[in-house]
């Protein structure tokens, strides 16, 4: 029964039992250390009380400007960074008994169990040059996760690697080559093949197309979508490009200085934003249409410093709707419409422009 319902991608709008991953109150503080004794003098609150969930087979886009904590949030989920606090609940198949599934808190797992779960969650990184070991052949790179998990089956492994390479659009004769022999787009495909080698259910893509040219970016996005359909993958897609995120995501979370400002279905978020930051961000994106005349909202100043954020709502110094309350109180993150969450004091009364 349960297995059957997993086969279909989630359709329903409400939060339901199709949740694959749920992040609750996730925090990642990096200490600022000074002096000879490395005394901690403060914290960079890179991720500060973040909540979201990902359904099976869907893509959650995580957008925001540099330093907003979107990459850190992605990495904290699989404990590449050890989170400071919070819960990361994941519906694991590997830890379930008798082929069933079990909701586990990744942050409480033993190293042994964590390693088991890591088979189900993989990552694709931004930089296709530095994320591949230059001394390993493509075959070794793609097979490495299998080796690490003791699944290297000798001769069969090569067949698995070849089928993975073919699946991402590379040729079997690429097997013995080294990363430097490939273009950026091809290297990203190698990274994707590696991420798929353990048959994951969730792939965290950290700016996977930012370093690629537009034509290659389109190929890579198409590939990611095809793979999602074929393997019923869930993606957390971290990126700063709002049009790419809109294109690939079912739902989108907008982050600002370590906090989620707004989450909604992609179309809803882009057409009816509820947070002034989302509105400003959308209006700032240059449109590829010379006849498009927008009343661009130019946000003043820079992104707030996460080690010394402003009081109240972190966005208030740049917000054109800010009032006294915004300086004093941290806004509550609440569900204003079904599936549409926002953290803004004035969300109810404001009418904001979407795209």
């Amino acid at each position, binding site marked *: 029964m349960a297995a059957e319902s997993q086969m279909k991608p989630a359709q329903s709008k409400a939060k339901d039992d199709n949740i694959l991953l749920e992040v609750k109150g996730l925090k990642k503080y990096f200490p600022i250390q000074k002096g000879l004794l490395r005394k901690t003098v403060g914290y960079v609150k890179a991720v500060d009380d973040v909540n979201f969930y990902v359904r099976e087979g869907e893509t959650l886009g995580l957008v925001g*400007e*540099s330093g907003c904590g979107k990459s850190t949030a992605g990495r904290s989920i699989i404990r590449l960074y050890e989170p400071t606090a919070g819960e990361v609940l994941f519906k694991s198949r590997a830890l379930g008994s008798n082929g069933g599934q079990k909701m586990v808190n990744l942050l409480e797992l033993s190293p042994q169990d964590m390693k088991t779960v890591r088979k189900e969650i993989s990552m694709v990184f931004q930089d296709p040059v530095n994320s591949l070991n230059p001394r390993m052949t493509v075959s070794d790179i793609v097979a490495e996760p299998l080796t690490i998990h003791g699944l290297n089956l000798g001769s069969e492994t090569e067949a698995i690697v070849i089928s993975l390479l073919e699946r991402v659009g590379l040729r079997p004769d690429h097997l013995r080559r080294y990363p430097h022999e490939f*273009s950026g*787009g*091809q290297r990203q495909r190698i990274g994707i093949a590696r991420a798929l080698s353990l048959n994951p259910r969730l792939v965290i893509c950290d700016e996977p197309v930012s370093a690629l*040219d*537009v*034509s*290659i*970016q*389109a*190929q890579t*996005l*198409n590939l990611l*979508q095809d793979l999602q359909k074929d393997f019923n993958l869930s993606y957390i897609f971290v990126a*700063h490009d*709002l*049009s*790419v995120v*809109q*294109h*690939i995501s079912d739902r989108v979370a907008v982050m600002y200085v370590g906090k989620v400002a707004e989450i909604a279905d992609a*179309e809803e978020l*882009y*057409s009816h934003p509820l947070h002034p930051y989302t509105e*400003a*961000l*959308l209006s*700032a*994106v*240059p*449109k*590829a*249409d*010379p*006849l*498009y005349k927008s009343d*661009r909202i*130019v*946000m003043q*100043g*820079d*992104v707030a410093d996460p080690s010394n954020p402003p009081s109240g709502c972190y966005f208030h110094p*740049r917000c054109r709707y800010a009032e006294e309350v915004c300086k004093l109180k941290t806004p509550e993150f609440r569900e204003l419409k079904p599936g549409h969450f926002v953290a803004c004091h004035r969300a109810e009364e404001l009418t904001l422009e*979407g*795209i």
Partner: protein
Amino acid sequence: MNEPLIEVKDLRVEFDVRAGIVKAVDGLTLTIQRGKTLGVIGESGCGKSMTARAILNMIPKPGKITHGKIVYHRQIKNNGQSQMEDIVELTGLDPDGKTIREIRGGEIGMIFQEPMSSLTPVYTVGSHINEAVSLHHLTPVRKVGDQIAEQVMAHRQVTKEEAREIAIKMLQRVGIPKPTERVDNYPHQLSGGQRQRVMIAIALSCEPGLLIADEPTTALDVSIEAQILDIMRELQESVNMAIMFITHNLGVIASMADEIVVMYMGKAVERAKVVDLFKNAKHPYTQALLKSIPHLGKKKTGGRLASISGMVPDPFNLPTGCVFHPRCPMFMPGKCDKIAPSWTKVDEEHWVSCLLYEEV
């Protein structure tokens, strides 16, 4: 109305490396008009940045301009009033000579992409580099105000105090808060967006007739990018400055350019007014580029992007005929792989280099 400022004629830039000769720019012709913005778009390695460097006579070794001319219509300023026009052929100048040094920074300003490390490989060799570097890199150990002031003093007859005043005024103009304090800051005390604004302040401090902006906002967030583009537009209007805007971002170029040149493998494949190019692109490469980007706000329709098949060809082993033919959806066998297309006028101020529009 149109008054040419820079005319690039049949420019060729070649790199003689061990594996052979790479034609970074291969027979490029374009014109930059006074007070207008020319957008140059194309994917990495298409030669757009090399063209900019050729105009500044700053081709890194082992690159060389092997053919062509770059004609600069220079205005000689007399008592602040522009008078006569002097025609200078930039490629003929000594890259270390006095004239080009006056032009660089003084009459042609430049802003490059912010991650400065992206430029370093180019600047590890060559003797004329030091100056070029100081022109478009912020030195970490010196105050930003001094760096602007130095640029001003190098090109204008002003005292140190006056130069500092100009520096403060420029910082204010590019939207840096508290310029009187910021002028004594070091670059590391500024954010990425602010550093890029300082670079713009330096580039514009001498009110150049042409600003070459090579991916000036690529490393910046959209909110900062919007600020920088606004500043560039404002300054362009106030001093009638021409801009050569190089980018791969079609959204940015749509809002900035008057005219656009599309480059592929060192050649211009299409040139048109901005609206024409976006609404009525002729070259299959331009059409494919425009289709391959996701458009913000457009509803999803099943959601696949049109991608260009294949990859940019190996520069040592270029395809015969039209260089785009192996990736072209309109490929005509027996024609495109045999005959190199020539520059064809398809409309008023709209040129394309494609055999579809030629009678062969």
